[in-house]
């Protein structure tokens, strides 16, 4: 169970965070949540698909790391073998919390930094420190704070993006048929991708409105990212020694 607490420089002055990448730190992820603002970075390494949250039925975009549950084909000897790690993974063990503050007599909601103290990365000996000697943030913690801010805005934006995809019927389910080097066949289903047929039928006005929000680029980034399936397959063959 997560033990999320508000981060502060007094209680947590000696806390360190291990940044090594390994299954024991929860990095054995099949996929992680992503959003249009990081599609450009993510599509360089990972296929980007869409998936439904089983608890809400709402769609979100994901960067794929493997073909099945708990399979991350980028993990190798304590390293993540790609130059870009999606922010929703990189931010661990931190998360965004909400705090109500009283500002000039008005109740306002403010985003604050939380940390999961039960996360296996959290300890007092190894890894990155969070605070400098006199209580100011380390560059590491500043970078984390920036990440969480980017995630927050990215997820808000993602909802608008996906609502538009659904409105224009631009998502379609697909089944991925895979054949490994030993000729064994596998299937992956339950994910969704951009329907190129519908995309090609969009009128100029719709295209212009998607473009104005930067979503046209995101759509093509998602389509281009599919070429990374080949790379994932190569990693899978390699891992199995095929």
């Amino acid at each position: 169970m997560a033990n999320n607490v508000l981060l502060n420089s007094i209680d947590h002055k000696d806390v360190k965070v291990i940044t090594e990448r390994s299954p024991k730190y929860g990095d054995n992820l099949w996929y992680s949540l992503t959003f249009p603002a990081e599609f450009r970075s993510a599509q360089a390494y990972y296929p980007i698909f869409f998936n439904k949250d089983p608890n809400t039925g709402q769609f979100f975009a994901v960067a794929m790391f493997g073909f099945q549950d708990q399979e991350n084909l980028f993990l190798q000897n304590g390293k993540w073998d790609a130059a870009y790690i999606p922010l929703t993974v990189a931010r661990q063990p931190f998360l965004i919390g909400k705090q109500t503050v009283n500002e000039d007599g008005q109740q306002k909601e403010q985003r604050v930094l939380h940390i999961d103290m039960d996360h296996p990365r959290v300890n007092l000996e190894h890894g990155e420190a969070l605070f400098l000697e006199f209580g100011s943030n380390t560059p590491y913690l500043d970078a984390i704070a920036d990440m969480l801010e980017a995630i927050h805005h990215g997820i808000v934006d993602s909802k608008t993006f996906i609502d538009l995809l659904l409105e224009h019927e631009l998502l379609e389910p697909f089944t991925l048929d895979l054949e490994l080097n030993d000729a064994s066949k596998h299937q992956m289903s339950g994910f969704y991708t951009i329907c190129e047929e519908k995309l090609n039928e969009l009128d100029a006005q719709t295209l212009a409105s998607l473009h104005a929000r930067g979503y046209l680029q995101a759509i093509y980034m998602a389509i281009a990212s599919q070429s990374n399936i080949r790379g994932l397959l190569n990693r899978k063959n390699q891992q199995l020694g095929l």
Partner: protein
Amino acid sequence: MQKPLKKIVIVGGGSAGWLSAGIIAAEHAADQDLTSQNNLEVTLIESADVPTIGVGEGTWPSMRTTLKKMGISETEFLLACDASFKQGSKFTNWHTNTNEYYYHPYTLPHGFNETNLAPFWQAYRDQISFADAVCTQSHLGERDLAPKQISTAEYDFNANYGYHLDAGKFATLLKNHCIQKLGVKHIVDHVTKVNSAENGDIDSISSKSHGDISGDLFIDCTGTSSLLLGKHFGIPFVSQKHVLFNDSALAVHVPHQSPDSPIGSFTCATAQSAGWIWDIALPSRRGVGYAYSSAYISDESAEQELRAYIAPIMGDKEAHNIAIRKISFDPGHREKFWHKNCVAIGLSAGFIEPLEATALALIELSAKMVSEQLPANRLAMDIVAKRFNSKFLHRWQNIVDFLKLHYVLSKRSDSDYWRDISDNSQLPESLQEQLTLWKTQAPYYYDATHTEEMFPSASYQYILYGMGFVTEEPRKKRLDLTKRAERLFNDNAKHTKHLLATLPTNRDLLNKIKQFGLPKI
């Protein structure tokens, strides 16, 4: 050149009128090409001062297709009609009156299209009920589980389902959709007169303040008054009261015990001394009613039985005081349904107790056939009408037989009603024959004599074996299918376990739908 059929006039609103309007207008794109020669005009005239009967709160799975075709969002429908999921019916006290029950689920027995499991179940009949052995859905019913998840797309399912709904709200939703999206013309006025053409067709109907409204085809959705087919054309009524005794109903709306009480997804049909009580759970209330035979019980005694039924739900005092609505009906149907240029859909065509929720299903089937077989001109109409009549006469006979089947296998002898209604000598001949045959062979494909039968042979299996009917074990065959049957039984058990672990309760899912809506894909 025959004059093309261009104008349909539907007389009467309610579920029948608006469903018919929606089904026809959606298929024929009545909202488009208003200037085109081929355009079909659909007009619905309803009176402001005629209340709809407002029963018929259960649908078949076919309603999913019907709504989808009309372009209605399932989320919108569920929320607007106070609707929940219906997965079939649960019958209590029909067989021996010892609190026993059985299920008639909407899902076919596992592997039904390749293997008939009924003969193989006979060996296990004392260990597991037929529905439990061949289908997942009775297990879901016992736990009030939903037939799908929040991530399942609109109209898709994990287990086949229709709906329980508020009939009044349903008619309103359909009306708005028909007018706003499907181009149906709406006239609120009172019909005063039916005007004949030279050939005996209906030429037009006169209204109080909209003058004469002419049309090429008139659809009679005027309810039990059957204004066009019954009153104007005098098509005789065929009573089925001698087979199905129930001719009265008492209906009441009952609040849930608590706001988070489970919402059952089976219509509960509990047998009483002279009929049965339906119990339908909607998100915000339950609809309960007693269908009975006035020849066997007085209205007062029937009312007492109904109040006794709802007392545990709402408390003695409230159950004693709540207002109950009485409906009287003659069970049966018209001798034919399509006469000249007039076709009756809904109660104007016939009415029977709501035991298997056939009312809305018949409306869908009728409107679908009218729409898909819509005659291009008057010459073609007589041929389509002939086919329509033979098809729906067969369907009515089917319904009568199938409903009767629920009664004839009863072992109850605690009242004259049950002794008389289960009397074998009073059976329709068609049912008599089937029952003889089923003693030595289980119902399967050969029992369907027409395409699109009202009830698949699976439904007969659920009722027969739910009511303790015995089909002799089949003789040994060269090709032994026992192994395959065992595999299907095991698959079903496995699949059941999986669904029990993954499906939410009806109440949970409906709450989530309120919050997030169902995904479109």
